[in-house]
C-alpha cells in the first residue's frame, strides 16, 4: 500500500516534469518565430474614430518593421482587443494580455481612465503599457512600466490657459467638461493656470458621460458670457454642445483640448463648430521632417489624411519596436528598461527621452475649424 502510493507520487512528479518540458519547448519554438504585442483600444463606441486612427498607424509601423526583418530575427505579431472606451473592459483585456506569456508589451489604451484602471495589472506583470493618448498627470505615476506619448494635461492645460488669457485677452473664462478622470484633470489644470494668469473662472460645469442635453448649461454660459469657453470634451459631445449653443444664438470663443481635433466633429457639428480652436502636438502641415515623412507614408498607405491620434499611435508603435530591438525582445521586464534607454528618439510629435521622466515634453500647434476644415491658426 505504502509502496504503491510512493510510486503514484513518483509517476505524477515525472509526468509534471515532462509536461513542463513540453510547454517550455512549445513556447521556445513559437518565440523563435514571433513576438507578440498587445493593443488595447476603443474600436467601437463613441471613441471609435480615435482608436481606428491609432490602430492604422500601429499596423503600419509593425508591418514595416516586419518587412525590414522584424526584431532579433522574430516577426512582431499584434494581438488587438476592443476596449470600447470602457475602463472595466480595459482591465479585462489587461488580464488577458498578462495571462498570455507570449505577449511581452502593450500599446494602449486610449483614455486615461482606461489606462489608469489597467495600470496595476500591467505593472504587476512588469509589462510596459505605452499609451499614445493618456494625458492624466497621474498615469505615469502608476508604475515604472507606464509610458505616454502625448503631453500631460499639466502642460496642455496651462498652454491653453495662456492662449486664452494672453492670446485673446480673456478676463473671464468658463469650462464645460466631461466628468471622468481625464476631464476633471483637464479642467483643473486649465482653470488653475487661467486664474494664476489673472483671469476669473466664472463657471465650471461638469456633465456625466452619456449626457446629451446641453441646452440648459449653454443657456447659463450664454448669460454669464465668458470671454473664452474651454471645452475638455470629445467629438460627439463637442458637436452636441456647439449645436445646442448655436440654437440659442450663442457664438462663444471656444478653445478645447486636443481631443476635439477630429473630422467627426465637423461631420456631426456642421456649421455649428466653425471657429472651434484647439492645440495639438501634430498637424498634417507640420514642418518637422519626421512629421512630413509620416504624413506622406500614412497617406500613401491608407489614402487618408492622418490626424494627431494617428501621429501619437505612430510614435507609440515606433517606440515599442525600438525597445524590442534594443532589448532583443527577450522578456517583459526588459522592454521598460529599453524604453528608458532609448535616449532622444526623434518622433513625429516630438523627441522622446524617458530616462528621467515618462512624460515627454511637447510643442503645440494651434488649429481652428474654418469653412469645414481644420487649418492652422494664423
Amino acid at each position, binding site marked *: 500500500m505504502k509502496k504503491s502510493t510512493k510510486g503514484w507520487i513518483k509517476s505524477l512528479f515525472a509526468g509534471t516534469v515532462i509536461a513542463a518540458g513540453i510547454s517550455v519547448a512549445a513556447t521556445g519554438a513559437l518565440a523563435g518565430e514571433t513576438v507578440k504585442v498587445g493593443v488595447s483600444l476603443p474600436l*467601437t*463606441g*463613441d471613441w*471609435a474614430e480615435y482608436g481606428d486612427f491609432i490602430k492604422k498607424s500601429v499596423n503600419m509601423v509593425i508591418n514595416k518593421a516586419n518587412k525590414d526583418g522584424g526584431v532579433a530575427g522574430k516577426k512582431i505579431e499584434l494581438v488587438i482587443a476592443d476596449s*470600447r472606451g470602457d475602463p472595466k473592459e480595459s482591465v479585462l483585456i489587461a488580464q488577458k494580455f498578462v495571462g498570455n506569456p507570449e505577449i511581452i508589451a502593450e500599446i494602449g489604451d486610449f483614455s486615461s481612465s482606461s489606462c489608469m484602471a489597467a495600470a496595476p495589472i500591467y505593472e504587476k506583470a512588469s509589462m510596459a503599457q505605452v499609451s499614445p493618448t493618456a494625458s492624466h498627470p497621474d498615469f505615469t505615476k502608476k508604475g515604472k512600466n507606464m509610458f505616454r506619448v502625448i503631453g500631460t494635461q499639466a502642460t496642455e492645460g496651462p498652454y491653453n490657459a495662456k492662449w486664452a488669457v494672453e492670446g485673446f485677452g480673456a478676463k473671464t473664462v468658463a469650462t*464645460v467638461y466631461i*466628468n471622468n478622470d481625464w476631464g476633471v484633470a483637464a479642467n483643473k489644470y486649465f482653470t488653475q493656470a487661467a486664474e494664476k494668469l489673472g483671469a476669473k473662472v466664472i463657471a*465650471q*460645469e*461638469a*456633465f*456625466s458621460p*452619456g*449626457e*446629451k*442635453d*446641453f*441646452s*440648459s*448649461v449653454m*443657456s*447659463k454660459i*450664454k*448669460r454669464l458670457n465668458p470671454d473664452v469657453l474651454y471645452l475638455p470634451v470629445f467629438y*460627439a459631445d463637442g*458637436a*452636441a454642445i456647439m*449645436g*445646442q449653443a*448655436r*440654437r*440659442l*444664438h450663442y457664438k462663444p470663443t471656444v478653445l478645447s483640448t486636443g481631443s476635439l481635433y477630429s473630422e467627426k466633429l465637423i*461631420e*456631426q*457639428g*456642421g*456649421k*455649428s463648430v466653425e471657429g472651434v480652436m484647439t492645440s495639438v502636438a501634430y498637424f498634417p502641415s507640420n514642418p518637422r521632417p519626421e512629421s512630413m515623412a509620416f504624413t506622406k507614408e500614412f497617406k500613401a498607405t491608407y489614402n487618408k489624411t492622418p490626424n494627431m491620434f494617428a501621429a501619437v499611435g505612430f510614435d507609440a508603435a515606433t517606440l515599442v519596436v525600438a525597445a524590442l530591438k534594443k532589448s532583443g525582445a527577450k522578456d517583459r521586464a526588459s522592454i521598460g528598461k529599453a524604453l528608458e534607454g532609448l535616449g532622444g528618439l526623434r518622433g513625429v510629435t516630438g523627441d522622446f527621452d524617458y530616462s528621467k521622466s515618462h512624460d515627454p515634453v511637447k510643442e503645440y500647434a494651434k488649429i481652428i475649424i474654418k469653412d469645414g476644415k481644420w487649418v492652422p491658426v494664423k
Partner: protein
Amino acid sequence: MLEQLINGLTQGSVYALLALGFTIIFGTLRMVTFAHGEVFMGGAYVGLTLFTYLTPSLPLALLVAAVVTFIMGALIEIIAFRFLRNAPHFSSLLVTIGLSVILINLAQLIFGPETRSIPPALIEDLAFGEIQIFGFYVTYLQMAVLGVAIAMMVATYFFIEHTPIGLAIRATSQDHEAAYAMGVNVNRIFTLTFAVGSMMGGIAGVLIGLYYNVFYPTMGILLGIKAFSASVVGGLVSMPGAIIAGLTIGVIESFAVDFWNASYRHLVAFVFMIIILVIRPAGIMGKSGPMSGRGD
C-alpha cells in the same frame, strides 16, 4: 431665464409624452413596462434612418415611427403580458426588462454602439430655422416638439374620453372582469392600449432624437426611468398628473443647471420627486383624474 423656461418646457414635454404612455398602459393593464424607454429609442432610430437615407421630412418620420412603435408595443404586450396573463406580475416585469436588453443589443447590432447623428446639412432648416417671439428665438424644431407633444396629449385625451374604443378602455381599466362580461374583448383592448402608449413613446423618440441630433442605443434608459418617475409622481393613473409632473421635472432640471451646476440636474430632479412622494404618497393627482380606477 425665459430661455431656461423654454429649454425646460421642451425637455419636459418629452418627459410628459413618455410619462403619458406609462400612465395609459398602467391605467389599463395595472402593470408596469420597463421596455418603454427602448420603444422610445426605436422611434428615434426610425427617425434617424428616414432622415439620413430617405428624405428629411418630419411628418413622414413621425408617421412611420408611430406605425413601427405601435407594432412594437403590440408585440411587447403579446409576448410579455398576454402569454403571461395568469402568471405572477413579477414574471411580466422581468420579461419587459429582458425585452429592453434585447432591444438595446439589437440596436447596437443594426446601428452600431457609437453615437450617431443626422448629417447637419439635412436638418439645417428644421433645427436652426426660427421665428422670434417677444425677443426670444424659438426654432421650428422646438415648436414642433412642443406642438406635437401637446397635440398628442389632446388627441389621447379625446380618444380615451370621447370614442367608443376609449369607452372600452376606460371600462377595462375600471374592472377587467366586468368589462369582459359586458362583451369587451379585453385582450384586444390591452394590446391596443399598450400599442397606443408605445406609439407615444416612439413619437417622443423622433422628436427628442432630432432635437438633440444624437442617437445611441442606450438613449432610452435614463429617459425611461425619468418618465416612469414622472408618471408615478403624477399619480400613475392620472393623465393630467403625468403631464404636469413631466413638464415640472423638465423645468426644474433646467433651473437646477442654471442656479447650481450641470452635473446636479438628475440629482435635483429625483430629490424633487422624492419630496413630492413623501408629501403626497399617491402622487400629484393620485386620488382623482379620468383614468383612476378601482386600484388593485
